[in-house]
């Protein structure tokens, strides 16, 4: 296999790993298995590296659609746990600082207000999700 073919397969594989990361484990394994097999066949036919990358690029929109359809129910369920709120909490003060540094007047005030209160709200939501989770057992 030429270095160019190896590189094109690598690009397709990295993209596949990226968009399947949000999917449920069975859907993810299935799609990754299909692409792994497809790339192996492409390398052994052999297809031109450009055609392999082009075939990936032409399907990117469908990959996005597939990832959203497979990942949204999972993402929705994750908001019943404290993790996403804990992840989001430190982003609010950062946002407040950036908006305050780059803007003036009303926009700066709103940005600062969101930055000052958002983190605490997220932590409160995290605590509520944790309590709910504990109550559910």
């Amino acid at each position: 296999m030429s270095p160019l073919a190896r590189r094109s397969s690598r690009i397709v594989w990295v993209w596949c790993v990226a968009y399947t990361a949000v999917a449920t484990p069975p859907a993810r394994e299935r799609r990754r298995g299909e692409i792994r097999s497809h790339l192996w066949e492409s390398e052994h036919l052999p297809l031109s590296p450009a055609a392999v990358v082009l075939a990936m690029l032409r399907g990117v929109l469908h990959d996005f659609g597939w990832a959203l359809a497979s990942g949204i129910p999972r993402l929705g369920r994750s908001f019943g746990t404290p993790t996403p709120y804990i992840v989001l909490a430190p982003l609010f003060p950062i946002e407040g600082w950036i908006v305050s540094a780059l803007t003036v007047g009303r926009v700066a005030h709103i940005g600062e207000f969101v930055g000052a209160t958002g983190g605490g709200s997220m932590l409160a939501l995290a605590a509520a999700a944790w309590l709910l989770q504990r109550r559910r057992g």
Partner: protein
Amino acid sequence: MPRRRAGVLLPLEETILELGLRRLRDAEPEFYGFAVATEVDGEAGRALTAHGTLYKVLERLERDGLLVSRLEEPEEFDEPRPRRRLYRVSDQAEGALRTSRSLQQSAVLRPKLASR
């Protein structure tokens, strides 16, 4: 991809089912994604079918009950390669293809009748 109308299959879905039915008649009922891509591209004389489009359509056809799939067993092949997901058309496939074609034909005929 064009918008789907109830009962009408998309061109790629029709092509895959045709291919599956042809394979069934040739007593080689199983096929896999890459084989579909190369066969479709060969027939249409165009660039490789997009990965995302192809596997999304295969999954949808299976979900709609027109295809069934299984993962190839390691004993079924000798060369060191990833396992293929093997598809075959279900009993409903031929009927669905016929319905889709007749719906498309009636949609083509209707404007002609209206213009008379």
